[in-house]
């Protein structure tokens, strides 16, 4: 191993590289291209993944939505086609029976109403919610606050509106917090204004009012329109979904096999599909990147082999004046490793700069296609180590070829 640290070895490599500029450049480009592709593809895949993550960012992705429809099977004396509603007691049963599985549960009642402020008015969705909704679907509050527990307990007539609603209902520059708007002819005090979310938004522009207030004002009794359930970490969300629906079926005297009675949407499963797609894409990236890398390394081997043929005479001279086969071999392997290393480093730097450029061009702003496209340092190191190993192995072939030719034959070559 001494020869690696011997300045003379490097002198020799410098000499032979300087002599063979073109092939050196071509060789370097081959490997550079491979590792460049790997870095850029991995970075782009990561950027895409980050983009999706950002899209779901404000939303608890392991959520299930459940609502009621009508039965499709007669059961316990009920005809099919029976309509029924979720109730507050269902919520309590679920909360107590699935206390381990459920992280958050938000029952919701919603309607549409005219909202009026001074002489401006518009129709918007009005939603009766618990403060927990903010945990499931994070609201970006621009001013004020979201609903709190106190609002629920005191049946407060307060509301949280969106930025767009504010623009529609208020004059420019007008302070919204503390002002009153009329919803269905009842005055509500605005306590918060939220901005639009970049990602999933179930509600759109909605005036949020306390669940208890909604119940009283719209006289919904113990009925619940629908609910959002967020699973605790490590819970099989599909299992939880079917368990909960089964429980609800028994509570509402619905046939266990009834397909229509409960509607549900499992965000977790949908996202799993997407994540699966991303994983597949990452695998593809690795596959393509490594294949290109291997092709590049083979190109190095190939070119070194040609060079060795070209340099047969030189190698013959060196051997005539006392170079041992081992020293020739070391020389060529070291050259191969040196070339792959330089090419690898250039490829990584080049790929990194392209990622930087991509980030600057497409990675910024709320609608960015690729968010923060990066590659982990350990991945780079692994790719680099692989490259050097391959460079060594491939260097063995020309090195061997260089030494099996007898010096006499090498010298005879003109």
């Amino acid at each position, binding site marked *: 191993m001494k020869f690696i640290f011997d300045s003379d070895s490097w*002198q020799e490599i410098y*000499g032979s590289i300087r002599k063979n500029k073109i092939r050196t450049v071509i060789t370097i480009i081959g490997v550079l291209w491979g590792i460049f592709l790997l870095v850029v593809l991995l970075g782009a895949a990561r950027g895409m993944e980050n983009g999706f993550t950002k899209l779901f960012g404000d939303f608890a992705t392991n959520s299930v939505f459940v609502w009621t429809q009508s039965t499709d099977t007669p059961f316990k004396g009920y005809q099919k086609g029976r309509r029924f509603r979720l109730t507050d007691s269902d919520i309590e049963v679920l909360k107590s029976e699935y206390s381990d599985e459920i992280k958050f549960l938000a029952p919701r009642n919603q309607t549409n109403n005219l909202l009026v402020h001074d002489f401006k008015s518009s129709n918007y969705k009005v939603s009766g919610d618990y403060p927990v909704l903010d945990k499931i679907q994070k609201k970006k509050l621009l001013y004020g606050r979201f609903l709190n527990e106190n609002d629920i307990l005191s049946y407060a007539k307060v509301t949280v509106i969106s930025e767009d609603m504010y623009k529609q209902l208020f004059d420019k520059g007008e302070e919204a917090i503390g002002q009153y708007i009329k919803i269905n002819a009842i005055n509500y005090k605005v306590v918060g204004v939220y901005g639009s979310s970049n990602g999933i938004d179930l509600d759109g522009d909605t005036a949020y009012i306390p669940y208890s207030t909604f119940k009283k004002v719209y006289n919904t009794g113990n009925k619940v329109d629908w609910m959002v359930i967020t699973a605790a970490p490590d819970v099989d969300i599909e299992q939880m979904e079917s368990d909960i629906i089964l429980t609800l079926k028994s509570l509402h005297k619905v046939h266990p096999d009834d397909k229509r009675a409960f509607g549900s949407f499992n965000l977790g499963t949908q996202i799993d599909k997407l994540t699966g797609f991303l994983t597949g894409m990452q695998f593809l990236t690795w596959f393509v990147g490594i294949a290109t890398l291997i092709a590049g390394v083979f190109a190095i081997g190939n070119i070194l082999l040609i060079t060795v043929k070209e340099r047969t005479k030189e190698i013959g001279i060196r051997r005539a004046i006392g*170079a*041992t086969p081992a020293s020739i071999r070391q020389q060529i392997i070291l050259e191969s490793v040196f070339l792959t290393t330089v090419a690898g480093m250039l490829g990584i730097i080049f790929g990194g700069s392209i990622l930087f450029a991509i980030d600057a061009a497409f990675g910024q702003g709320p609608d960015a296609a690729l968010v923060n496209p990066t590659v982990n340092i350990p991945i780079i190191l692994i790719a680099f180590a692989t490259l050097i190993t391959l460079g060594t192995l491939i260097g063995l072939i020309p090195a061997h070829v260089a030494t099996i030719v007898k010096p006499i034959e090498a010298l005879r070559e003109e």
Partner: protein
Amino acid sequence: MIKIENLHKSYPIGKDSLHVLKGLDLHIKEGEFVSIMGSSGSGKSTLLNIVGLLDTHDEGKYYLNGQLIKDLNEKKAAILRNKFLGFVFQSFNLISYKTALENVALPLYYKGMGRKERLKIALEYLEKVGLKDWAEHLPNELSGGQKQRVAIARALVTKPKVVLADEPTGALDSTTTDSVMDLLKEINDEGMTVFVITHEEEVAAQTKRIVRLRDGVIISDKLTQQAKAV
């Protein structure tokens, strides 16, 4: 120094084999200046290659510096070449991308000598062949005679026992031929064994002993006027 007994060598050509050396006996003592004469195909290059450990012989015995050469692997051959032999080729065989000085220093590199030391020694030898001022020139910036003198310096730099010259003047005009031969004579006067292969009578005449080969056998082995003059 070099002792050859009943040396045979043949090359396979297709199914047949070409018998090139047919039982040579040759004894070259230390300090001799020997030329091997012969037309092409006489086996003189083969002989030089065997003596120079660039090729192996089939039969017979070869002693270099008293050591029987037998079953050498490439590594041992390389070490022996580096230690005992200096080569001068017809086509100079300098490495084109290295300066004259680096070319001369290369055998010392394979000997494992440090850079500073070997460049210093190489410069001394370049001075000896009168090319000190050309040390930093690349071979293609030198004339044929200069190239051959660089090659001779390279052959001498390891202080070998024998200098083997294969048609050293083959690519040179008569003036430079003389200067190269003078240089070889000078080296020989200092005690170096010089072994020249040539087909030019004038070149051979400047050595001290002429061995003539024809069809793989020695037909004559005579001392020249040069030897008698000494």
